[in-house]
């Protein structure tokens, strides 16, 4: 990270120099140039992200149902949707715990697994390190969509590997238990799936950080009598704090947004109400029930949650580097 700052400063120094040597006329043209170059991108982002965000906010204040959609009429009800959602016990007993609890568990597990793998990779020689890195890349690259089906298949109650292994061991008769109808086992499987996909990013990022920690710091700590855990806690963690922070916040954002991995599991598409999270609730309210207004309200709540985390993310990032 200290290298980052040096590089940054050098970069800025160079900018100052070129500015002085560029003639005035070209400098004026350069003033408009970045905005011309940015225009297509900003327009796309505005139309596809900013405008829909405003529209969803607007929809969340309406009782907008299928008939409104067909007739193209708006029907403003003020904060009614919000009152209804926030006073619904379903939100507090099921949806929010599913969303927040699941994300929290996934973040903690992903960080632990990712960091352990990074520490392990750091102890390997170059050849085996790159072999293992490629292997975890595969885990990372498997799409959420097909990865979810692989986990559903592994836990298939009738002929999945887990059921038949347990059957073979005499612990449980295959087909006697459906993992997907129970809230805890459902989310247990989803957690495995999400951690499997999430740990490689953490491992690779942390490994990059680990390789920058000066060896002398470890030696100094070892001379002071620190054991492996002490060296990790007193040297590695403080040095990597910025990277750890970014990893934690990024995985928090990702794990709150998990949709496909839940929606594609048996019962995850809203048919088992117990296992719904905010994203699935919003989606099914809109596209299964045709209540777009209510769906938008739930989507706004999810967005606000993510926004709070994002603001923290940006603040951490801003502290670490000059953008």
């Amino acid at each position, binding site marked *: 990270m200290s290298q980052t700052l040096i590089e940054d400063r050098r970069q800025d120094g160079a900018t100052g120099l070129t500015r002085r040597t560029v003639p005035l006329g070209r400098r004026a043209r350069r003033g408009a140039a970045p905005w011309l170059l*940015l225009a297509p991108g900003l327009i796309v*982002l505005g139309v596809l992200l900013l405008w829909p965000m405003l529209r969803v906010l607007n929809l969340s204040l309406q009782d907008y149902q299928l008939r409104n959609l067909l007739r193209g009429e708006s029907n403003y009800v003020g904060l009614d949707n919000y009152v209804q959602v926030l006073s619904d016990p379903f939100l507090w007993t099921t949806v929010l715990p599913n969303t927040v609890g699941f994300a929290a568990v996934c973040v903690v597990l992903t960080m632990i697994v990712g960091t352990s793998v990074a520490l392990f990779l750091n102890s*390997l020689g170059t050849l085996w390190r790159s072999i293992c890195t490629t292997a975890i890349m595969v885990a990372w690259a*498997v799409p959420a969509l097909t990865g979810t089906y692989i986990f559903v298949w592994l836990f298939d109650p009738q002929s999945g590997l887990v059921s038949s292994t347990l059957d073979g061991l005499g612990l449980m008769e295959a087909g006697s238990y459906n993992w997907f109808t129970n809230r805890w086992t459902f989310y247990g499987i989803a957690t495995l799936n999400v951690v499997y996909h999430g740990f490689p990013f953490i491992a690779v990022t942390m490994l990059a950080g680990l390789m920058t920690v000066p060896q002398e710091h470890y030696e100094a700590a070892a001379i002071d009598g620190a054991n492996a855990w002490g060296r990790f806690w007193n040297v590695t963690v403080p040095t990597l704090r910025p990277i750890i922070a970014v990893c934690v916040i990024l995985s928090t954002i990702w794990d709150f947004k998990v949709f496909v991995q839940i929606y594609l599991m048996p019962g995850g598409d809203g048919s088992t109400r117990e296992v719904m999270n905010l994203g699935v609730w919003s989606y099914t309210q809109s596209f299964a029930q045709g209540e777009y207004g209510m769906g938008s309200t739930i989507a706004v709540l999810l967005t606000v949650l993510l926004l709070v985390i994002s603001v923290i993310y940006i603040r951490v990032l801003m502290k670490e580097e000059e953008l």
Partner: protein
Amino acid sequence: MNRRTPASTAGRVIGTIVLLSLSLFPFYWMLSTAVDTSPLSRGASLLPSGFTLEHFRYVLVDAGFLRYVRVSVIVALGTVLLSGVIALLAAVAVARFRFRLRTQVLIMVLMVQMVPLEALVIPLFLQARTLNMLNSLLGLIIVYVGFSLAFAIWNLRGFVAAVPRELEEAAYIDGATWFRMFRSVLLPLVAPGLVATSVFSFITAWNEFIFALTFMQDSAKYTVGVGLRTFFTQNTADWGAVMAASTIITLPVVIFFVLVQRNLAKGVTAGAVKG
């Protein structure tokens, strides 16, 4: 750090075996189910009971999965092309110019990646419906460009920043116009980054599910992800077919990803280091 005591060597060997098998196992399980002669009677055996390509034949020929592949390829390539051009222009702007609001633009680009798709799918669906763009490949491409753009800008910015300024200045001194410099100095040097970013945009579009599910209601326009669901019935699944189709979806992504991964990481770190 690398003290080679027998105990630590044994630890490394065991660790490597555990890591390799756990990382690759789900992937292996998908492949081996896809070629298994009777996947449903596999029990706990780790090896397929026999080798067959019948599931692939069924998926591609009988079930017509190939047309979903076609749709996905068109959509993904369209996304790559459009977002590549737009992102490169924007990346040059943020990496090469210091201008007012530059930091704000960068922050906005970062924030965009945090917006949940569930919040966008409702208004964009309503809009696409009004504009008669449901079931339209172009409609889906436009939406995906929006999603892949932020990352593409962020990543390309690193590659553009890594090109030495002196080369550009030299081109100016030689009397080159900005566009000439762009074409013959910047573009060739940024090419590896452009490839890595393109692959990433391709994967984003290829993997996307929520919008494809919502927008493509005509089964002839299903993407691979939505098409995969046709192998499930109410209570059962043809797991041989599902895993064969999953292999067709997953394999190109994994190969692409592993190939460009190093480049991708380079762009992101260069971006972080050089601004």
